């Protein structure tokens, strides 16, 4: 299967601190891979490096065929990152935000509207300023932006954080749908019960190094059993 993420001894520095100290990582097309590890292990740095936001200073690293050491900016339009921050304009409404970021990524207006409907943000909520939303609602708006842009690689940092039960089910369903549509998902989570149920396999990171890859999930966690709330399909 096509390699989407390939790291060989990848080193990333945050200031002078080696946030990644020689990570090896392979993610193939169509996989859902869970990054696991304690706080400060480097999970967020791996995701941000894959998004081309953190430079890889040594080793080898490529994402979707783009060499992150020489041209990390080129990969950005192909990947979607759901980070800790929302990446939204507080004073704009939900619809303003989703449509702006969708247009920026050359998505059609219909994609933005469909994404808002999929995330339950159509109707009254669409005209509410983001500043007035709860943390969970903001998370849904960020997800709607990601869905509308249809990235080839989804990078999700604690995607279940701040979401209620329905929201968590929804995001599991979105990951399954993304993979079914040909995308690949790499995500970090501390909510292991839920995350391991969705992931095909787990990569463990400790102190900026990956220690183990658990392949056992592959047999037990096909995307099919995920329960998804009844919302319009994108």
């Amino acid at each position, binding site marked *: 299967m096509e390699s989407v993420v390939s790291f060989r001894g990848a080193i990333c520095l945050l200031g002078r601190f080696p946030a990644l100290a020689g990570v090896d990582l392979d993610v193939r097309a169509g996989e859902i891979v869970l990054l696991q590890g304690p706080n400060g292990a480097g999970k967020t740095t791996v995701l941000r490096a894959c998004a081309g936001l953190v430079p890889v200073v040594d080793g080898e690293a490529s994402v979707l065929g783009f060499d992150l050491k*020489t041209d990390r900016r080129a990969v950005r*339009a192909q990947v979607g*990152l759901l*980070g800790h921050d929302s990446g939204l*304009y507080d004073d704009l409404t939900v619809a303003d935000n989703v449509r702006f970021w969708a247009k*920026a990524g050359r998505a059609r207006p219909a994609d933005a509207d469909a994404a808002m409907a999929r995330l339950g943000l159509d109707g009254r909520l669409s005209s509410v300023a983001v500043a007035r939303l709860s943390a969970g609602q903001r998370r849904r708006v960020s997800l709607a932006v990601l869905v509308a842009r249809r990235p080839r690689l989804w990078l999700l940092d604690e995607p279940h954080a701040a979401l209620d039960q329905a929201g968590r089910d929804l995001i599991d369903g979105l990951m399954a749908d993304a993979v079914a549509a040909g995308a690949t998902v790499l995500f970090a989570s501390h909510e292991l019960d839920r995350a391991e149920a969705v992931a095909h396999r787990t990569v463990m990171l400790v102190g900026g190094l990956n220690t183990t890859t658990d392949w056992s999930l592959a047999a037990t966690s096909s995307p099919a059993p995920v329960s998804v709330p009844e919302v319009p399909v994108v």
Partner: protein
Amino acid sequence: MSESRVSVPNFGSTWHDAKLVMVKDLRLEWRSRVILGQVVPFAVLVLVLFGFALDPDRRVLTEATPGLFWLAVLFSTLLALQRAFAVETADGVTDALRMSGLDPAGIFLGKTLGIAIHLLALEVVLLAGVTLFYGATPHGPLLLVATCLAATAGLAAVGSIFGVLSSSLRVRDTLLPLLLLPTVAPVLIAASQAFAAAYADASGDGWRWFGLLAVFALLYLAIGIFAFEPLLEES
């Protein structure tokens, strides 16, 4: 490393992205009313305070109108710039911009256009203000309008460059004036001289100053188009 190269913009997509960013910034102002509710009243207040500080004698105020007008614009520009770039740094928006696929040159032109439109609206209010408070009446309206357009383009272009440069720094609120004010001193001088000519019906001299403003604006627009990408990366 090859990452430090400066990319040459594709003008079709650059213009598309510039319009997108400009419309977004105008919509942000429409929703938040920060320029209308805070920056415009501040600018009018500055005009009034100049009046108190100088002299109740209108002759002094009338003679000083060009300089006072552009000082009020300059101070208000600082507030408008701080607002324009504060919204781009809050809650991970800078990363979202980097990831967006928008052409950095388009982002620069969009921000510059948005800021320029806000400043032009502010200048209309200030022109009414100097007429009302200082009793100044222009005799060369064409030069006046041309000066406003060229000076505003220069202020907005320089402001966008320094705005993104300082946006991620903790000291941005104090650093921005330190960077901006010396750089735009030529705009203050040339725009004040051109305005003085327009108010004194001596437009011939004024057009030479307008030429300087136009060169300044074009120079910083060109710098911004090519330098905004590395500046956005480092911000």
